[in-house]
């Protein structure tokens, strides 16, 4: 067993994929914390599905499968989708959840139509585009991980720089505005960062599972602490652990797909946290309740 593990850990592909998945976990953990606290959890769902037409259009217009170009396309259409959701919410009586559903499905439909269109083109080598839908962590290359490291450093650096502002606007945007901060600008920056975090993970875990990467580490971390700083750190840690753990399991078991395993790992962490976190957790609350009941009984018993 230990020998197998050593062999795996020394394997170059494993190192690359594990590093990439861990990085993804860190990035999505940090920005997911903000998304979850701002009740934008399903933004991830919406943006990741909406990235598809951008990816295909970027491919169709340049004919290249270069990650950076495709990601720029994804960024454009993901940000456009987030903008549309805000626009619809602001200018009509349509609720934001319905707006998200509409934009998500229409953009994804458009992406599929474009994808089939590109498949009909002669000598188009569009075969790799589908990995944006399902994600293929195992095909991660050094360049992809490098890109992730750079983008991750920029994203996390921005969060650190604007920490005070983000903290303020996540919990009390009205107060933030009275202090003279521009709420529209801060919101736009934060949304932009979240969109970037989502897109960077698309190639690894795919459209469907990326929203889990964004939400789940943050929800798990939320159970352990009431401080934003600890929550962000914990979410990043959980994300990284799930990334490496998922990669490990999928390389131990043949045929095991990496993305879904990572998601199951992080979900297991979240479920554990919901049950067993001190104070907030379900178990802790049950114990607390039993203790109170005993206390109450003792007091009533003492009086009568």
């Amino acid at each position, binding site marked *: 067993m230990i020998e197998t593990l050593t062999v795996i850990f020394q394997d170059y592909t494993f190192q690359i994929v594990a590093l990439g998945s861990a990085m993804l976990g860190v990035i999505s953990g940090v920005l997911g914390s903000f998304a*979850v606290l701002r*009740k*934008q*959890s*399903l933004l991830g*769902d919406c943006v990741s*599905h909406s990235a598809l037409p951008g990816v295909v259009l970027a491919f169709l217009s340049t004919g290249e499968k270069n990650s950076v170009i495709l990601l720029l396309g994804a960024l454009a259409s993901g940000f456009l989708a987030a903008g549309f959701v805000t626009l*619809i919410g602001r*200018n*009509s*009586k*349509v*609720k934001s*959840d*319905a707006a*998200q*559903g*509409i934009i*998500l*499905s*229409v953009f*994804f*439909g*458009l*992406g*599929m*139509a*474009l*994808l*089939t*269109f590109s498949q*009909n083109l002669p000598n188009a080598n569009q075969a790799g585009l589908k990995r944006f*839908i*399902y994600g293929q962590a195992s095909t991660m290359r050094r360049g992809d991980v490098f890109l992730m490291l750079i983008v991750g450093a920029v994203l996390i650096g921005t969060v650190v720089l604007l920490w005070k502002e983000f903290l303020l606007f996540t919990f009390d945007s009205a107060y933030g505005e009275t202090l003279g901060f521009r709420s529209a600008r801060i919101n736009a920056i934060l949304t932009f960062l979240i969109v970037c975090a989502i897109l960077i993970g698309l190639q690894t875990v795919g459209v*469907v*599972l990326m*929203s*889990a990467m*964004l*939400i*789940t580490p*943050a*929800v798990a971390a*939320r*159970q352990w602490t009431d401080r934003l700083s600890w929550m962000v750190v914990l979410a990043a840690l959980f994300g990284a652990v799930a990334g490496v753990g998922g990669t490990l399991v999928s390389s131990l*078991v043949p*045929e*095991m*797909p990496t*993305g*879904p*395993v990572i*998601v*199951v790992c992080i*979900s297991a962490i*979240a479920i554990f946290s*919901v049950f067993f976190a001190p104070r*907030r*957790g*379900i178990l802790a609350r049950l114990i607390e309740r039993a203790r109170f009941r005993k206390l109450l009984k003792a007091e009533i018993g003492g009086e009568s």
Partner: protein
Amino acid sequence: MSAGLEISLIAALISAACALPGAFLVFRRMSMMTDAITHSILLGIVLAFFRTRDLTSPWLIVGATLMGVFTVWLTETLTQTRLLKEDAAIGIVYSTLFSVAIILIALNARSVHIDTDSVLLGELAFAPFDRLILFGRDFGARSIYLSGIVLIINLAVIGIFYKELRLTTFDPAFAAAIGFSPFIVHYLLMLLVSMTAVAAFEAVGSVLVVAFMIIPPVTAGFLSDNMKTQFVLSALIGALSGVVGYAAAVKLDVSIAGCMAVVCGLFFMLAFLFAPKRGWVSERARYWARKIEFDRFTLLTHLIHHAGSEIEERENSLASLPHHLGWSPRRVERASRYLIERGTIRSFNGIFFVSDRGKTEYLSYCRELFGDAAENFDPANGG
């Protein structure tokens, strides 16, 4: 029946069937729950397949439907612990169930021939190959019957429980108070949604079920305020986008489901922009009309306020008004030109004077706005 006609029919039936329960989901702000249900259905299918070992077994539909309801229950139970918000619960539950399904499929790839591609994306083009053959006779594509039955069930259930559904949707507390169980009605609706999603996703794939459940009802909401009309409209919009989407897909030779969703989205966009009354254009038009009317009233108020006072010349001249009102000269000119043409005010040496007619009009307008309190605005009382 030709294959094209059959596909159009399936598309129309399925999208109409989706639009009906979808309307209640939109009213209940559960739009994103469809996304969760359509994804976790896959796990139901996989698990049912492990028991029956038959991909055409009706038990697969039962298993998938139950899994959809289970998803809703799990999401709501998680939300009720108040440890996480509803949107986060939705995201966690469905992605976990979906991941487990994908893992199960991947690990049993030799025995399970479920194509994740067709689950996520659907393939309506193959529907005509799956025939319903009874007693050696070909009765047409199986999907026609499946979607037809789902549509009929939806119509029947929503028809019978319309009152209960409406009550629990808009006033659950009152519904509970007079003895309806919102819980039972809620899960009846979820059962309906789940069943419809199962039937639909075979044809259009899980993501686009979301399009057919949400977009037609929202679009219909722009066109009518009457709930029954909205139901009829959303079923029609759904059916129409199914048929038009298919035609477009054939013409462009691209994904049918993708095209149908895009057409659905186009209908939504048209309604969003141009709906009479609710649309963006008419709302903007109303906004500007009100703004212009308000400008005229404000100008008149200002003029009347200073009429006859010593500073009248300083306050009520065309040159000074932009400064006093904080408006652009153009805005002052536009409002004053209208009032002059109407005979409400007169211009003399670049100074505006309110005519008698203007005073009467002003008073009646004030009465309209403020009722009895309007007396305080009478310039004769020094208002």
